[in-house]
């Protein structure tokens, strides 16, 4: 039986990778993938706790997160395509018109 802490540590590493990727990367697709990574890191925590506590709530939450992530992916990709069409770039540093 793998102890709970292993799952949590893996989850934390995955989440940290997601944050780092989100902060460092310029390509909007990569940033998007980093967000998915963070979401899935959280999902891993949920199922780990669900298994440990023998509770169904964690599973339910994971499904919610997956549904939201799917919806977000659909909308996000649509936005990315729209941005690319107008600006012909995926570099977020150049998508900065909405500032003071």
């Amino acid at each position: 039986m793998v102890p709970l802490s292993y799952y949590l540590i893996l989850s934390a590493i995955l989440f940290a990778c997601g944050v780092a990727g989100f902060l460092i990367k310029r390509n909007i697709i990569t940033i998007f993938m980093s967000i998915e990574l963070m979401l899935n890191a959280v999902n891993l925590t949920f199922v780990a706790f669900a298994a440990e506590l023998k509770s169904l709530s964690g599973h339910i939450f994971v499904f919610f997160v997956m549904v939201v992530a799917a919806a977000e992916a659909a909308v996000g990709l649509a936005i990315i395509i729209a941005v690319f069409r107008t600006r012909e770039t995926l570099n977020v540093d150049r998508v900065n018109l909405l500032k003071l």
Partner: protein
Amino acid sequence: MSLNLWIIPLLPLAGATINGLFGKRFSNQLVNVIALGSTALAFLYALYVTVRFFGLSADQIPHIEHYFVWITAGTFMAEFGTYLDQLSLVMLLIVTGVGFVIHIYSVGYMEHEGGYYRFFAYLNLFMFFMLTLVLANNYLMMFVGWEGVGLASYLLIGFWFLKDSAANAGKKAFITNRVGDVGFLIALFLLVKHFGNLQYDNIFKALAAYPVETSVGFITATGLLMMVGASGKSAQIPLYVWLPDAMEGPTPVSALIHAATMVTAGVYMVARSNAIFNRAPIALTVVGVIGTLTALFAASIGILQTDIKKVLAYSTVSQLGYMFMACGAAAYGAGIFHLMTHAFFKALLFLSAGAVIHGLGGEQDMRHMGGLRKYMPKTFWAMTIGTFTISGFFPLAAFFSKDEILWKEWAGGNHILWLIGVIAAGMTAFYMFRLWFMTFFGEYRGPAPETVSHGHDADPQHAGHTAAVHAQQADAQGSDHGHGLPHESPMIMIAPLFVLAVLSVIGGWIGIPAALGGSDRFDHFLEPVFHFSPVAEAGGESAAVAVEPAEHEDRATEIGFMLISLAAATMGLFGAWFLYYKRTDLPAKMAAAAGGLYRLVRDKYRIDELYGATIIQPIILLSTNVLWKGVDATLIDGTLDEASAGARDLSDRLRHMQSGNIRSYAGWVAFGAGVVIAFMVWKGVR
């Protein structure tokens, strides 16, 4: 039974409102109909009220009407209501009657002025406030009227507000009156403190229980403070300085507000408060002394003024002094009598002066007049009647009223004040006849017609009233717009002069004293108003014992005193005749001989300069250096400026967080999340 007295003040208010709001689009005729109509209706209603008043039985006077409660606060209560007794009836008739006559005159005088509707709206507004003042049944409402006439006065003095001097004169009048009003207001506070409200009937009844104060107590303090208010409104020493400057206003305004009605409000107030003053002999003495000194002081200034309206202004101040002199001797009836005759003859004098000024195209300096008798004979006669009346010649109005005052003064034992009064009467005659001789006799000293550029009456309207001589002169000089020679005023201005002249002649006959075979009817008529006098109850007995047996000798003495005042007036007349008609070279020589004294009197004793140096300059310095530059600019502006500048600087820096760089946003999110996690770890998750 109700007389519906509220109608009287409300009529002019309606006129003022209609003309004030919509008058700009009205024709002058419509403005006339509204302004004169409302005043005429008020006058007619006042006449109706007078008839009804004489039908009232003695116990129904004062006739008090309560309309509604205006203010309640705890036990304090002030209401809207009217109070009609003999005193307010006399005032009511003077205000509406003289007011209406002057309204008519204004139609002619203001014909060529801009803001015609505005003038009449203000004039009606003044009527409303003056009637409120006169008819009020409590001191608070009187104060409302009191302040209201001050406002109307301010607006009308500054009627030609584009002229700096007029605007300043308006401000001066308003501010000087504020000084007096503070005194009046504190007097009202004292009354509220002691009696709980300001209703006349309550206060006068409650006062009956108070003894005469021989030392300074609260009644004396109230009386003195009221006198401060009265000396502001009625232009007495030391607050008289605004009235001469108030002559910047149009002449009908000077006649109505600054001679006949508003400035007498102080006298009315003192007479109305006789219950207070009779219990405060010290305050009464102060009133008498101030009045007497003002009468003398203003008369002496009047002697050397060269502006025709200024002479009349100082004369008004001086005559108001006489009224206070009468009140100071507790002869309120005589004071009100003089108030009434003064309203007639001073309005007449001012309106005549206005006709002269009008006929000369705005010239007010008497040195540029002279010989006007042949150019404007009707005005000349009006002015002649006015001059002889004010000087106190028999049997004109002021003879009776002024002599009653002087006689009461002597009978009251104030022989020094009496003497000053007689001297002032002589001076009055002198400066009035000086004005008369300088204006109407001798040669016309005005500028040659073509140099006068006022030309306000180059229109046919005036040409119609102009003497044929005038037309010929104008033709001969080929001047198509010049003022030409002096001319008579239109009929609409002469008719009011006629009415007032008649009143000036016969107005005194209702008060012919017993010594001359009359019956002092005016005094007896007013007597019930002054029955709050404790003197009549306590002091009256001893006085009655002393006076009754001596009645017959007194009559002879009284006639003797009349002769003395007549002599003083005659001396004034001949003095003026000698100096300003017979030997016109003398005044200049005398002025040179008198030197510094002459200049001091000519400069009005430099009282304005004194006030300027001792009061106004320090206030200006304080205001400029401390209040403006210190408190306002540094403290208040500084605090606000610093606060807003600080907020702007801070936001200027924070603004840069919104860089548009998504990763920096994300960084901040991550940073925030980190802080939250750190906080939770530090506090313990639960």
